[in-house]
């Protein structure tokens, strides 16, 4: 099984899109490509589970390692473990959904779909790479498409948002770069596997961990580097918002996880800072959301709050919390994508995202409203949806740290679920329920492609929410490996 296919397939799709003529061809090609990606990811999953079942306990499967820049000892080293596989599956699902919701994008459609596909390619490459250089490479590959997508097809103050997003993300990756150099010159390799084996001197870790972690933190909307999130998401076209929140922010979380795994000592040293920032992000994001009046801003800020859980899980540095972080990444990816999809559908019909101007949509567009409500319920962590599983796992993990301060952090983060309930229900109560205005009463419900996209994402959410043991089965071995290698395994007494 050659993982490079995951990069080549989107590349091929992109090229074909460039050659295609007319919206119809383009979107069909895009959809086929996306389906192929999903198929590939699914097949990968099957192969992965088979191998594990066959007793292959290697940390990374389907590894392949080619020398790239011999002089600099840079290798093209790819391979996946459970975590990356989960991320890959997430990406493939969101890509399909994204292409489906932008089915009728007639403005510069060729470029639009081209960039979408390019973005997905970046994500895949990022998740499969085991070499810090390629990791960094793909991290930045994903930035430019975002800039163009937001700047060209966005709404509102789009160029400003696009610029802000691009610059802050570049700033983040600049920090990452410095961190990577530090690692490189103290281990003479970029290869994560090798680095894990030979370890990094503690002093070096302590010096370079902040660079790398904060750098990725910017991508993961870590407080106080989250300010690109609201504007970026709000200005982006629907599919781009879905990709941003669903995939790109996960690049950050994933990167933080890997960095923490590479520099365990530093991670332990700084964990209190990480947890502090995460807790602030959770609470602060939640309260900031409560004050928003624009649906997209509501979801953007809530994303900050939810991604805080990812960071919190990582910061707590034990098996359960790391599981929680990973599940939360997947869950939040699906959930927020669904949310943005619903908001996009509403916006494309009512041409407003202001909660105050909406109302009673449940009457005019029951399907979309139901989707919206489901996304909302998932976001406030209702059992049966993925959000519950993820958040509870994070809580459970965090609670395992007996230190009082960590307890308080956990309780505070827990308190955010109440605030979440408040803002979700306010938005739902105003926009979906209540009396409907006359001009909205006649609007049409979702079309087949929108329905398909929503159903796809909801299925994902339900699979995790109803059968969490499946995803656990996938990721727990990997997190175990990480935790063992970090030399700190916390279990309940």
């Amino acid at each position, binding site marked *: 099984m050659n993982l490079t296919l995951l990069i080549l397939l989107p590349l091929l799709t992109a090229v074909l899109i460039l050659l295609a003529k007319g919206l119809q061809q383009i979107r069909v090609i895009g959809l086929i490509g996306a389906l192929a990606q999903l198929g590939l990811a699914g097949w990968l999953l099957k192969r992965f589970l088979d191998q594990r079942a066959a007793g292959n306990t290697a940390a990374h499967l389907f590894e392949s390692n080619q020398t790239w820049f011999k002089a600099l000892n840079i290798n093209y080293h790819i391979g996946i473990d459970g975590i990356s596989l989960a991320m890959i599956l997430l990406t493939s699902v969101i890509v399909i959904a994204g292409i489906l919701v932008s089915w009728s994008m007639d403005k510069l459609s060729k470029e639009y779909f081209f960039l979408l596909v390019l973005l997905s390619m970046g994500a895949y490459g990022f998740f499969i790479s085991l070499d810090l250089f390629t990791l960094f490479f793909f991290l930045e590959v994903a930035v430019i498409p975002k800039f163009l997508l937001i700047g060209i097809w966005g709404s509102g103050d789009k160029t400003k948002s696009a610029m802000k997003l691009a610059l802050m993300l570049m700033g983040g990756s600049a920090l990452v770069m410095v961190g990577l150099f530090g690692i490189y010159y103290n281990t003479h390799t970029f290869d994560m596997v090798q680095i894990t084996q030979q370890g990094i001197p503690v002093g070096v870790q302590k010096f370079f961990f902040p660079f790398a972690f904060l750098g990725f933190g910017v991508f993961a909307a870590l407080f106080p580097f989250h300010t690109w999130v609201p504007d970026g998401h709000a200005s982006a076209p629907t599919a781009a918002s879905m990709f941003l929140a669903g995939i790109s922010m996960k690049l950050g979380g994933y990167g933080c996880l890997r960095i923490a795994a590479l520099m365990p000592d530093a991670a332990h040293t700084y964990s209190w800072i990480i947890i502090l920032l995460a807790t602030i992000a959770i609470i602060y994001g939640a*309260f900031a959301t409560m004050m928003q009046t624009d649906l997209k801003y509501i979801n953007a800020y809530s994303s900050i709050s939810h991604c805080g859980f990812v960071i919190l899980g990582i910061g707590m540095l034990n098996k359960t919390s790391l599981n929680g972080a990973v599940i939360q990444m997947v869950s939040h990816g699906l959930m927020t994508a669904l949310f943005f999809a619903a908001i996009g559908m509403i916006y494309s019909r009512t041409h407003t995202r202001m909660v105050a101007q909406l109302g009673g949509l449940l009457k005019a567009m029951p399907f979309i409203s139901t989707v919206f409500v489901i996304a909302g319920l998932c976001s406030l962590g209702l059992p049966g949806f993925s959000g519950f599983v993820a958040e509870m796992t994070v809580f459970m993990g965090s*609670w395992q740290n007996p230190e009082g301060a960590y307890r308080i952090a956990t309780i505070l983060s*827990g308190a955010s679920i109440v605030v979440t309930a408040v803002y979700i229900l306010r938005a739902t109560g105003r926009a979906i329920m209540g009396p409907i205005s006359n001009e909205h009463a006649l609007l049409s419900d979702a079309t087949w492609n929108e329905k398909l996209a929503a159903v796809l994402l909801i299925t994902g959410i339900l699979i995790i929410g109803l059968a969490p043991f499946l995803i656990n089965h996938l990721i727990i071995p990997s997190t175990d490996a990480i935790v063992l290698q970090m030399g700190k395994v916390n*279990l309940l007494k």
Partner: protein
Amino acid sequence: MSNYLYILWIPLLPLATFVLLGLFGRKYLSGIAGIIGTASLLTSTILSFVAAKQYFFVDGKVNGVFQKIVALKYTWLEFSPNVSIDLGIIVDPISVMMLVVVTSVSLMVHVFSLGYMKGEERFATYYAFLSLFTFSMLGLILSANIFQVYMFWELVGVSSFLLISYYFNKPSAVAASKKAFIVTRFADLGFLIGILILGFYGGTLDIGLLIERFTSVHSTQFLSITSASFLGASMLTWGLVLVFMGGAGKSAMFPLHIWLPDAMEGPTPVSALIHAATMVVAGVYLVARMFPVFSMDESALNIVTYVGAASALFAAVIACTQTDIKRVLAYSTMSQIGYMMFALGISKNGGENGLGYMASMFHLFTHAFFKSLLFLGAGSVIHMVHSNEMKDMGGLRKLMPITHIAFLIACLAIAGIPPFAGFFSKEEILTAAFHENKIVYGIALFTAALTSFYMFRLYFNIFWSKEAPVAAHGHDDNGHESHGEGPWVMKLPLLILAACAVGVGFIPFSQFVTSDGAALETHVDVVFSIAPVVLSVLAILLATSFYKNQNGKSDKVAAAFGGFYTAAYKKFYVDEVYIFITKKIIFPFIGQPIAWADKNIVDGFMQLLAKTTSKISELIKGLQSGKVQNYAMYFFGGVAVLSILFIHIWK
């Protein structure tokens, strides 16, 4: 012991109904949705009766003690070895008892709704939600794992939310649903943290194991949790109190009760099911479920006791002043649940001292029937007059005889007049209170009197006081007939429930449901029961003289009470306090500052960076003066600086 796995079908059938109706109901099945829902629930009901028979009369008892049987245990989400959420089915007296209660009441409501909700646009959706609720409630009852309880706890909450906001285009209904969900959510936070504490020290989330570990005084878990303390209270106390907080939220105990009266915005059958019979007693059930652990911690039990007692009295007082009949019923519910709570609080675990526990469960059992009867009765009244206000009613006894009779029976039952159901259960509670705690006994007694008073105030205001109003006749805006009491599907449940309200009291409850499973001998002491009965009768007579036919007496009395009356009428301003905290404190002092800070400080800092950069570049542009001579000078300056710098460094 034999296999109880078929119990699995009892919750699963409603779930299936929910999925079916939820997906296709709206389009294809809107006609027969009600039939489908009722049919599937009927099956569950039968199954649960079968289960009850099997458990209580066939093989539940092993040498005189009812066993806890875990019929199913499936690891659903594993946090870490031996700490996991297991989906399980526990079969023991209370769970079986609750099975019967929930299924049968729910069945009644399903049947009643066939008539009551007829012609609604979202008829199928209604039944879908109803099934969802039933499923969640059953799941909650059967939970063998405390986290499983939490999950279904949340699901119950959300289905209640959905049902309250069923009339979604009515802003008041939406507001009420929001309130209900958020308040309970707040309580659930406590529940969650309680779970985390217990789970952390107990090393498991399985209720059976938790009880086992925390009840044996020498187990390491018990020692660790009691030795660890925070703010002077042991972690056990904290855990239990927080768990109870969750229960208090769902069961609308003071001060978390504010959502219950508003929840009456939902369709009346829903109120009958959720907000009278089943969901609101979940809190009581939870405490009962964890009771052995509670019994290990005196202070936690005291809190339960006094919160319960306070709520009972508080609600009863308010109930005397309300004019919306459903609100009166809501407060009476709250008051009755208060009864159950403090009954648990004063109880001990096992043996004679377990009387309170038994009584509480008994009252829960009886209350379910007569309270749902009251609500359904109120339902058919409202269905007829299209109003919740007492002033729009009166003299309906001729127009709706069956309802009248049923309602009267229910009132007598709740007032605790022998031989109606309420009498027996209340009697047990009072006995227990009398033995354990005189103060609580006093409160209980007084509350009992108040109960009879406001119930009959309600009764007379609806069915007597003035002559049959003409306004009630004719067509309502929905266009369907409102002559008489509606179709038989609405009468039948009333009759059945009325029968129960009379009959269930005679069940020798103490034989079946006790704290330790062993049968308990109870004796109805005639001398003891004189006091409460007499009091109740007096209260009824008072109500009669006030309200049987309109005379100013009641107003005079109200005037006499003056400020206290208005305070009670305004529900003692608890809502206002909450609104003050949220609207006046949290929003302006936490939310808005943060939103502002995010825009101006955090983001402002980033903006500032950009601005400074461009500002600097603006400032230094003079460097590029365009004069070639300056360029040469800068050149020479550069040379000079470098030479000074590096010849110096070189030194």
